[in-house]
């Protein structure tokens, strides 16, 4: 049984490779760093388009929408004892672009570069930060990024610079250390083992009731389940469906599902002759057992969703209602010149639920004569192949946009301004699959500048319709759901859609 003033969390830390806000991608990191660092602003857990103040007590957007100004609190202290100032904020954001690591990507799409960032992000005085936009874009999108991106954490510039080596802006040091102002201090982090945090007593908000948080790397779902049942852990994440279903029946345990911005999808490569044929793509669309997958594989992992835009946005159209139809698919394949099907391969992460989706896909493809071999691998291998455009079919998850904004999804899944191999737009899944529609590109670019909200929504709906008729290379199957299981004595835990789940309010009532 866990002590009353400690919170013990079992979760997979497979993707937790670095704690540096400039380089750490992946949801695991956000859920750790959210408790160690602060952001300027925060998004509401269940209603992410609602922005609330944090380190910034207020902000304003200039008339022309080109500049955002933040007024900071003056009572925020870092764990080191240093005061948090506007300089730290500016430095933190500049650092992301200067290092040009994974998380710079989003900022670069807004037009920031390592060279111009000092000019566009500036501390006006000790408690005022001004962000000017290098290109015209929707400033709300930028605000959302500041409230959700792992790169938006404010680091203690003085402390970090003490540990700078060879002009790395403290990158090496920050990989395993933390210089934040969050409600908890990092005590010890061991990769793929555990993260230990202790309460930061000088936190500017109410100090947390929990003295210690232990996050433990656990991948075996049954182990998590057994330990949760015994009360040896308080919160379990990343469990498998059957265990979740079983635990839901336990009175001492409750579950909390949070919807995420990412989509489970089946992708095909249009660099491949077969799949560049629209009829074949349409056939594939008919060969996915959406219902079967969502009913028997996806519960607790995701909910049925077939649009490239994520659920819950005003612009998202109702489901198009694709369904498994082998007969139709066969006809289409015959029209496309493949009456007997063909051989292909499916690349997939060797994890639940990916592998099960792939297995299901394999069997439905087989019904239309398509003989697909499954090639499993780590994320690195699967997405690596995708980035190099060396795949035929793939079961994956993406749509990265954490920001509650249609652009964020579309940019990641559909947008592809240059389809040449040399362009190497590897961060766009549109480019990776080779789906290129100038029509869609234009609408996406214009929609971002559209000031009229209603019009903007219509534009985004157009995109979805065109995508449907042109039959994109990515077929969304399910919108990701993150199901967390908690002991019922854990209160005030609120899963965050953007994964920035903050544990500072959690209490235990026994």
């Amino acid at each position, binding site marked *: 049984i866990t002590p009353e003033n400690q919170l013990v969390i079992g979760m997979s830390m497979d993707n937790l490779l670095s704690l540096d806000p400039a380089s750490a991608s992946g949801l695991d990191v956000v859920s750790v760093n959210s408790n160690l660092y602060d952001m300027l602003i925060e998004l509401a857990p269940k209603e992410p388009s609602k922005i609330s103040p944090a380190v910034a007590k207020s902000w304003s957007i200039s008339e022309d929408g080109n500049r955002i100004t933040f007024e900071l609190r003056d009572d925020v202290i870092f764990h080191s004892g240093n005061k948090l100032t506007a300089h730290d904020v500016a430095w933190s954001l500049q650092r992301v672009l200067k290092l040009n690591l994974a998380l710079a990507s989003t900022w670069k799409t807004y037009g920031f570069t390592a060279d111009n960032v000092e000019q566009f992000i500036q501390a006006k005085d000790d408690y005022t930060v001004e962000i000017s936009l290098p290109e015209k874009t929707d400033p709300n999108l930028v605000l959302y990024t500041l409230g959700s991106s792992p790169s938006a954490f404010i680091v203690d510039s003085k402390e970090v610079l003490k540990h700078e080596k060879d002009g790395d802006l403290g990158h090496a040091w920050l990989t395993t250390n933390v210089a934040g102002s969050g409600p908890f201090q990092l005590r010890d982090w061991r990769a793929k083992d555990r993260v230990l945090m202790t309460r930061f007593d000088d936190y500017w908000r109410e100090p947390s009731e929990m003295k210690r948080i232990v996050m433990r790397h656990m991948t075996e779902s049954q182990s998590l389940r057994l330990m949760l049942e015994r009360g040896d852990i308080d919160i379990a994440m990343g469990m498998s469906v059957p265990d979740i279903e079983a635990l839901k029946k336990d009175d001492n345990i409750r579950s909390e599902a949070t919807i995420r911005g990412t989509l489970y999808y089946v992708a095909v490569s249009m660099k491949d002759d077969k799949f560049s044929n629209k009829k074949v793509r349409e056939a594939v669309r008919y060969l996915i057992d959406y219902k079967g997958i969502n009913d028997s594989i996806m519960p607790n992992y995701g909910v049925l969703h077939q649009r490239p835009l994520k659920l819950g946005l005003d612009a998202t159209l109702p489901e198009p209602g694709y369904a498994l139809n082998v007969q139709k698919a066969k006809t289409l394949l015959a029209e496309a010149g493949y009456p007997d099907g063909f051989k292909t391969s499916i690349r997939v992460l060797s994890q639940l639920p990916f592998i099960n989706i792939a297995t*299901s896909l394999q069997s439905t493809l087989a019904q239309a004569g398509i003989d697909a071999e*499954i*090639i*499993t691998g780590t994320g690195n291998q699967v997405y690596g192949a995708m980035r190099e455009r060396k795949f035929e079919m793939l079961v994956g998850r993406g749509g990265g946009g954490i920001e509650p904004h249609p652009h964020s999804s579309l940019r990641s899944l559909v947008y592809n301004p240059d389809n040449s191999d040399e362009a190497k737009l590897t961060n766009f899944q549109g480019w990776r699959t080779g789906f290129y529609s100038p029509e869609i590109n234009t609408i996406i670019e214009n929609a971002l500048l559209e000031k009229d909200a209603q019009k903007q929504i219509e534009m985004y709906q157009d995109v979805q319709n065109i995508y449907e008729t042109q039959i994109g290379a990515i077929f969304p199957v399910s919108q990701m759901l993150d199901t967390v299981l908690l002991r019922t004595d854990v209160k005030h835990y609120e899963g965050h859609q953007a994964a920035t789940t903050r544990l500072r309010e959690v209490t235990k009532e026994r």
Partner: protein
Amino acid sequence: MITNSTMKSSSISKSTNANLMMLLKTVGHGCKRIIRNPLTAAGLVVVILLLVIAVFAPWIATHNPLAQQLSNSLQAPSAEHWFGTDEFGRDIFSRLVYGSRITLYIIALVTIIVGPIGLAIGTISGYFGGIIDTVFMRITDIFISFPGLVLALAFVAALGPGLEHAVIAIALTTWPPIARLARAETLQLRKADYIVAVQLQGASATRIIFRHIVPMCLSSVIVRLTMNMAGIILTAAGLGFLGLGAQAPLPEWGAMISTGRSYMLENWWLVAAPGAAIMLVSLAFNLLGDGLRDLLDPRN
């Protein structure tokens, strides 16, 4: 002329016949002795059963092992599905039956690769000694110090997951002990009078190694291989468990456990059946190997 050649051929056939007879006799004798030890016999029976099941899988299986029926998933064992169904509604009994083919395939392939390599390296190294021995033994050392599962992992990581790659990987980890065994035997045999005798008759090294030394090492190598089978099965299952062995939808037993373990607390049959199958078969091979060793042990 004619008589001469017929005589020759008859004598040759006679001698091969005689050798064959000898072989049959020893085999027959061995069988008798195997049967006398109930444990070994049990092992033999299970292994033969495995063979039969693998050969006649299509007739024995009650369902298509790959046919999914999501509506029928996770059914408990019943008259219709003897060992229940898995998360895709596939019949576990049929998957086990077909899985025996994979198991046998892995074993056979590994044995075919490992036996000759180990035997050749071991005997050559032991017979010639000197620098050849040193070089071969260093190589063997390197492979021995390379942790087995890790080497397998590395190879699978290098070549991509898959049955063939797993087999190659396992083979790479299994030959060194065989080579060492063969070498140790050869070192002893090399000094034996009957080897010296053929040397004195002018036999070449190749001839001595392959006609005189290899047959002597064979029995212990076979015993060792038989006992290795269990290890091979377990390693393959381990790779399957880590998701690096046979790929879906192949009904490899280890992979079945690996995917089934998510359901094991509610649906125990998902892991119980393949786990028991792995254990039974490797136990059988162990029993058989153990019995064979007692049988072929010169001390008996």
